């Protein structure tokens, strides 16, 4: 399903002294089957934007199209179907665990969406394996798990509801480096093999650049720009200005240019172009 924001505004607690406009005139499009990353300084509205994607929040003004449903104005059944088709993984998984066992926890979403639980139970083991958990956790209490394990349980529980769109709010925060990499690989394979749309919020620019096809940059509630990773590497100063990090390779290239006097002629920045340029530079240095 395609997702289209048209001049969407969102205000928290309108008409009170605490009112705060978190999204300002957002217009953008997320194509079905694409992998987009949302980046921005803390408080720039990333989580607010994400919560619109499965109708937890509805635009204060403007229009949001989620496949065949339009917000505001959708009725109850439509919203429920959106919640099933768009899986949202929250920043803090401990906010949603409540059952006695991990197994019940995993079945909670599918049960709410009216799935055939017998069928879902046969899929439990595969899905545990997918997210990197042992089968033995099934009978344990979710509260005994570590933070990383809780996150994986929450993810598995979301995947079991068979969403078409995966919306992930900093899914790798708090995981160990290897775990982070594996989880990103999982999203990548879900995207490539099952044609899921993936919308990923991350503070890690390297991840955003490596995995996403498009990067949405938010700044204080507005869309600063929407660019592909290869375009974004040329926006180093602009990113710095709004408080964002630049990926390490980009920093490295800047360093080579400024301190080593390397002549940079490549379009993309990756291991190959960097090593090619370095080799060229060193050879050039040897001959002269």
């Amino acid at each position, binding site marked *: 399903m395609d997702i289209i924001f048209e001049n969407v505004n969102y205000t928290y*607690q309108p*008409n*009170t*002294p*605490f009112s705060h406009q978190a999204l300002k005139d957002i217009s953008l499009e997320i194509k079905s089957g694409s992998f987009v990353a949302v980046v921005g300084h803390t408080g720039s509205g990333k989580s607010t934007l994400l*919560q619109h994607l*499965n109708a*937890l929040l509805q635009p204060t003004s403007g229009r949001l199209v989620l496949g065949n449903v339009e917000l505001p104005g959708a009725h*109850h059944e439509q919203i*429920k179907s959106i*919640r*099933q088709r768009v*899986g*949202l993984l*929250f920043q*803090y998984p*401990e*906010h*949603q*665990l*409540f059952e006695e066992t991990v197994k019940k926890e995993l079945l*909670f*979403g599918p049960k*709410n*969406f009216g799935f055939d639980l017998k069928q879902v139970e046969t899929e439990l083991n595969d899905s545990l394996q997918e997210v990197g958990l042992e089968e033995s956790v099934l009978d344990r209490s979710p*509260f005994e798990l570590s933070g990383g394990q809780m996150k994986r349980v929450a993810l598995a*529980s*979301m995947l079991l*509801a068979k969403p078409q769109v995966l919306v992930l709010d900093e899914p790798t925060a708090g995981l160990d480096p290897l775990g982070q990499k594996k989880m990103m690989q999982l999203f990548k394979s879900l995207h490539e093999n099952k044609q899921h749309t993936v919308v990923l919020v991350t503070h890690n620019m390297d991840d955003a650049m490596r995995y996403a096809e498009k990067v949405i940059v938010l700044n204080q509630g507005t869309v600063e720009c929407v660019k592909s990773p290869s375009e974004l590497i040329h926006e180093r100063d602009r990113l710095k200005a709004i408080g964002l990090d630049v990926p390490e390779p980009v920093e490295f290239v800047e360093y080579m240019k400024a301190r080593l006097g390397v002549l940079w002629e490549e379009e993309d920045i990756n291991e190959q172009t960097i090593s090619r340029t370095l080799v060229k530079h060193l050879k050039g240095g040897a001959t002269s």
Partner: protein
Amino acid sequence: MNQSLIIGQYVPGESVVHKIDPRLKLIIIFIFVIAVFMANNIWSYVSLYFFVFASVALSRIPVAYIFKGLKPVWWIIIITFMFHLFINSGGNVIVSFLGINVYEQGVFQGASIATRFFLLIILATLLTLSTTPIAVTDAVEALLKPLKKVRFPVHEIALMMSISLRFIPTFMQEMDKISKAQAARGLDYTKGKLKDRFKALLPLLIPLLISSFKRAEDLALAMEARGYQGEEGRTKLRQLSFSKIDYIVIISLIVFLVSFYMIRV
């Protein structure tokens, strides 16, 4: 979620009402409670309304905001009014429909009880909106001090109060997050049979309870780590003292009370 209940949510400001000493504010509320029950004719009620709305105006907190926060209370006020309207049978009949008579006394009784309730709630809301929870508890502790003589745990009670007040907004935010997380998993507590709806509250209440316990534990640990050991040898960071505004407020209060007393019959 946290949009309909505003009592306990401090609205920062620089108004006169914000600056009044919290002890004086508590005393005013106490006096006002007595005054409300002493009012006995239309003009004394009018003067109470004047008192309350003058305070609201001085606080510069939007009236609409305060009213919105009263939403959960409106029903109680309306039901109280209706109750008196139908059961009190003093004075002349004003209207009568469907065989039910509405009497003069009923209207007056209903209106005055509803008014008392309404005014008290507004003033209490105003107190919490214009005073930080910390200031309220400091004031409670200061005013209850004499009870220490009879070994009443004033300090502990005040501490418990300030912690609970401090965590109301946090609690609300947490509730908001949890209900969103569960709604995203398809939880629906707006439909179905009553029993199902109660069941649907579990996924909200359990995470909320667990996070509250965790928070309490963290807080206790943090307090201990910083050497908290109860009241003994503890000095105050914020000393309460009366300022010019407070004396002006006291004089106006006395003027008001005297005229209020004279207006009554």
